[in-house]
Structure formats: C-alpha cells, structure tokens
C-alpha cells in the first residue's frame, strides 16, 4: 500500500497556477526524487506536503490518513529548507535541538542525539557557533542536522546538498543513502543533480511548469522517457535527439538519417512499439543516449546490444578523464558520443561509430510524446 499519496493536487497563488494536477504515490520506505527546471513547482509541492501551503484542490494522504487540514507539526514530517531557514539567534546545537525541545524530549537525550547527528554530518566543531558564523555548506549541513535529529514519518529534503563541494557532496549522498537503508523512512527529495537523482531514488518524478511529465524508476525514466522533455532533461550529457524518417525495409522498421551530402544513413529498429508502426513513412525524432554511440568493437559480443556502423564527422573531442565526449554531426544536428578515454577519434576526422539501437527511442515530432 502507498505510504504517501498525492491525489490531483492543484495549487494557485492568486491567479498563478503553480501545480496543475499532480498524482504521485510512494510506498512505505520509498525514496521519491523530484526533478525539474527552476520554478516548476518542486518546492511548492514539498511545502504542500509539509502543510506550509494550503492546497487549492486535491488531497494528500500520509499513511492512509488525509492530512490536508492537519497542522505541519501534526503531520510528523521533518524538512530541510532550500534556504536552510536556520534560526539566526540560536547556535548550531540549539538549532538542531529546538524541535525536540518543543516536543518535550528530555535534555540529556537531546544532547545525545545532537552529538550523534553532528558527527555524522561532520559539524561537531561548529555546535557553539551562530549561523552567521558559518559558510554556506556548513549551514546546509546544519539544516540537514535539524531534520535528522527527528525520527519522522517522512523526510522532506529541498536540495539539501546543492551548496557542498564535490567531495563532501558525494560523502553526504552516501550518508543519506545509508540513513535511508538503516531507518527505512520514506523520503521526498528535490535535487538538480542528475547523479543524486539516479543513485538515491526508488521513484523519480519529473515536473515541468507544474505538470507531472513522468513518474517511474530511475531506469524507466532514463531508458524510456515519456516525452522529449524528460529525455532531454534527464541524463548528462543529455540524450541526442535527431530528426529522422521512419520506413519499412525488408520487413523491418528502419530510421533514415539525412547527411550533409544528401545521402542517408539507415539504422534498423529493434522491438519497435505498436505506436511506431503507425508512423511508417513519416518524420520522427530519434533519441539516442551518448553512450549508445561508441567507436570500439563490441566488448562482449552477447551483451544485448545491437550495434550498427555509422560514419560521422568528429567536430570536437572533450576528454573528461573517465571517458571522452565527441561532438559529431548526426542527421544534420550536433550529437554527443561517449567514447572510451583512450579513443583514437580525433577532431576534424571522419570516424566509423557503432550505434547501439537496442536502447533507441522514437518521439512524435508534433506531440513530443514517445512512440
């Protein structure tokens, strides 16, 4: 049964419609990650779940109970605010223990819990300081700490790691992962970080302009995006979206990509959907992840990949250390290929790439929905 249910949720600020009918449900112990461009309504959704904003329509259930009318303190949630919202007049220890004090937890226990959480967040040295004497990243960890001292039904995290340096961010991400495994508390988490979203989530919800685009497991979101927006938004570098034409040749569906010289590249589709059949003879958008384009022979011949050769002009190469990104021209568009770090591809040369079509997706150019 679902632990957190958001049902037809709408939210208006005056005449501005910020959330337009959101339906999400998360099972007990689930980890929901909300992603979407700035201003799409992620924080607003979190605030309505917390009870800090009233809802215009729809309902929210926590553990089977409708909480629409319930005061924030009665919903048994702990929240990390995007702006930290630390109490400026209290030191770090007091900031973290204030909630427990209000709930009547004895002093000795408060101190014990604060010490434990502070060591987990590496802020033991800061306990006596005021928020104004902390750096952005330190403040953010204190804000985390204020939520983690509680044992609520749901944790709400609004971009809790956005201000940390790369190394600390990875450490904190792991801590959150461990915490989630240990406590099994349901978590709703907002982030702009692709890796955080993919690694932490059991469910990802993609929002755009207050409309839910897709809800699914990280793999579903990544491999079968519901529309062009999701395909483009998730993944870094993002999915290559190339105009193509869908045809039937020798009984199988193929996509043809136009090349600059007027010739075409033909790539066969594997396991095309029924919807795709209806598009034979029409224009489509072909979606290919950068890692589906490679210049190496198959590492393992039976890894499920369906490789097909493709010749393309390499414009630029960008070594990232772990691998090398190559900008190539594909169907008249610039596309990215993720190659091995030690690739032989050089900028300005023509190369033969291997395209793995097993994970290719097609989109309707007009509705932008996946076929």
């Amino acid at each position, binding site marked *: 049964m679902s632990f957190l249910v958001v049902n037809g949720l709408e939210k208006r600020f005056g005449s501005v419609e910020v959330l337009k009918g959101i339906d999400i449900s998360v099972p007990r112990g689930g980890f929901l990650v909300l992603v979407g461009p700035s201003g799409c309504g992620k924080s607003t959704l979190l*605030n309505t779940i*917390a009870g*800090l904003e009233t809802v215009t329509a729809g309902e929210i259930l926590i553990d089977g109970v409708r909480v629409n009318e319930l*005061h*924030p*303190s009665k919903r048994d*949630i*702990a*929240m990390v*605010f995007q*702006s930290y*919202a*630390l*109490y*400026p*007049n209290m030191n770090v220890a007091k900031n973290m223990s*204030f*909630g427990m004090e*209000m*709930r009547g937890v004895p002093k000795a226990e408060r101190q014990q819990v604060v010490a434990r959480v502070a060591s987990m967040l590496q802020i033991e040295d800061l306990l006596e300081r005021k928020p104004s004497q902390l750096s952005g990243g330190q403040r953010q960890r204190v804000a985390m700490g*204020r939520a983690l001292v509680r044992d609520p039904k749901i944790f709400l995290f609004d971009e809790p790691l956005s201000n940390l340096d790369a190394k600390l961010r990875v450490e904190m991400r792991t801590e959150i992962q461990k915490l989630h495994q240990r406590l099994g508390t349901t978590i709703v988490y907002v982030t702009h970080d692709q890796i955080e979203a993919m690694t932490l989530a059991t469910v990802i919800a993609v929002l755009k302009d207050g409309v839910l685009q897709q809800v699914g497991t990280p793999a579903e979101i990544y491999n079968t995006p519901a529309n062009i927006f999701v395909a483009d938004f998730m993944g870094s570098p993002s999915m290559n979206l190339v105009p193509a034409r869908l045809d039937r040749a020798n009984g199988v569906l193929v996509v043809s990509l136009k090349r600059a010289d007027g010739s075409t590249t033909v790539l066969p589709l594997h396991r095309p959907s029924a919807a795709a059949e209806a598009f034979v003879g029409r224009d489509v958008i072909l979606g290919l992840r950068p890692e589906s384009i490679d210049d190496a022979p198959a590492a393992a011949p039976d890894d499920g990949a369906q490789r097909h050769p493709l010749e393309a002009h390499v414009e630029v190469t960008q070594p990232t250390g772990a691998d090398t990104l190559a900008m190539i021209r594909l169907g008249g568009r610039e596309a990215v290929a993720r190659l091995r770090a030690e690739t032989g591809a050089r900028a300005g040369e023509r190369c033969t790439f291997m395209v793995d079509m097993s994970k290719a997706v097609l989109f309707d150019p007009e509705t932008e929905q996946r076929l």
Partner: protein
Amino acid sequence: MAASAVETAVRTGRLTRALIYAALLVFAVYYLLPLFVMMVNSFKELDEIRGGNMLALPELVTIAPWIKAWNQAQIGVQPTGLAPYFLNSIKMVVPAVVISTLLGALNGYVLTKWRFRGDTLLFALMLFACFIPFQIVLIPMARVLGFLGIAGTTWGLVLVHVVYGLGFTTLFFRNYYAAFPTELVKAAQIDGANFLQIFYRILLPSSGPIIVVTVIWQFTSIWNDFLFGASFSDFDSQPMTVALNNLVSSSTGVKEYNVHFAGAILAAIPTLLVYVVAGRYFVRGLMAGAVKG
C-alpha cells in the same frame, strides 16, 4: 597628468570637507547655544543673572538652584520641587513604553507572518493613527477614561499613550518583520512551536535594533508629552512636563530663572540619557527598517 588629476581631486575633497565641517559647526553651535545658556545660568545666583551677561560663565558657582528645583520649589500649592512629578513620569513612561512596544511587536508579527483577509487595510488604518492630531483625541479620550474609571490616574495616562503610540510601534515592527524570512516561521511550525513560542523564541530575539528604535521613539514622545499630561492628570499623577510648566509659570514672587533652567534640564535628562545609551542603535535600526521594509 595623472598626478595632477589626483592632486585636484584631493584639493577639492579638502575644500568640500572644510565647507561641510564649517556648516556642521554652525548648526552645532546653533543647537547647543540654548543648552549652554541654561547650563551656565542654572549655576548662577539670581542676582548675577539679572545684572550680567547671559552667556558669561558663573562668577560664583552654586548648586542651590538645582536643589531648589528638585525638592523645594513651589509647584501648584505644595513646596515639593519636581521630584514627585519626576517619579510620576517614570511610573507613566515605563509601563506605557513596555506595553506599546510589546503590542506593536505582536501586531507586526501577525500582520506579516499570519496574514489574513483585509490585513493590509487594517494596517493602513493603523498607520492613519500616526497622523491623527492630539487635539482630536482629547474629548473622546476623556469620555473613555471616565467610563473606565481611570480618569486622572497614572494608569489612565498609560492607556492614552499606549493607544496613541500603537500606530507608530506597529509601523516600526511591521516593516522590520516584513524583511524577516517567513521560512523561519515555517521551520519553527514544523518543529512544533506554537504562535507565541515562535514569537518570543524566534522573532523577538532577532528584533534588537527595532526594539531600540521603538523604545527611544516612544520614551521621548511620551516623556516630552505635555498636552495629554495637562488634560488627563490630577495633582497626584501630573507628569514632569506639566509640573515644569507650573514651576515656570507660577505667578507668585520673583521669576527664579536659575531654578527654571535647572528644572528644565532635569526634565530633559532622561531622554538625553536614553539617546546616549542607545542612540547608536537608533540610527542603525531606523536605516535597517527603512531599507528592508
């Protein structure tokens, strides 16, 4: 060429600065002169004042006028000096300042953090209170005090000043709290703090500058008020300002200027003290309120 440009800049700077200082000096003298005259003459014998130069330092320093003003001078019918009235003023000012400041803070808190329908209109009406002339309030206020049975008492005066000051204190605190992050209130709500706990645990401790501004403002205007004091007090509740007026305008005998000067300075000491102690925060707080509000 660059060097000469710099030199010109410095020279202009010096000249402007000299002019500014000269102007400031003129103003300072202009404002300090009356205080100086009062000061020097309050330490002179009456004969010396009559016969001599008002601006001259005393030939013979005496503190007799001060003692007389404080507890011997004839005020009304009793030779009590200003002392009992000074006490009256304190008994009136302290509760009035504390109550009006606290209420203003509460109003500001509600008007910014617990918004409700019509709150802007309500605030506009409260602002209006700042522009109501004293004279208009006199008669209705007299009726209210009579109705409540506190006419002529210190508590009656406290009520008058609290009501009249509420518009100002609400304005100060509303503007200050408008810039106070609402998310802190939300965080405290999630932490389980209630309406009043949020107010005195989160907002009040961060309100230092605006409390100073409000206290100074209220203290000076209530302490210096004459009209309400003259209208709504009895003999035993008259504030300092009214007593000072009685002292100066008593028609019996000779005009004891030295005693009058001493009395006037005595009446001004508390407000001066408040400014000296908290004046730095006053300007800072006013600026904060002005810029962020």
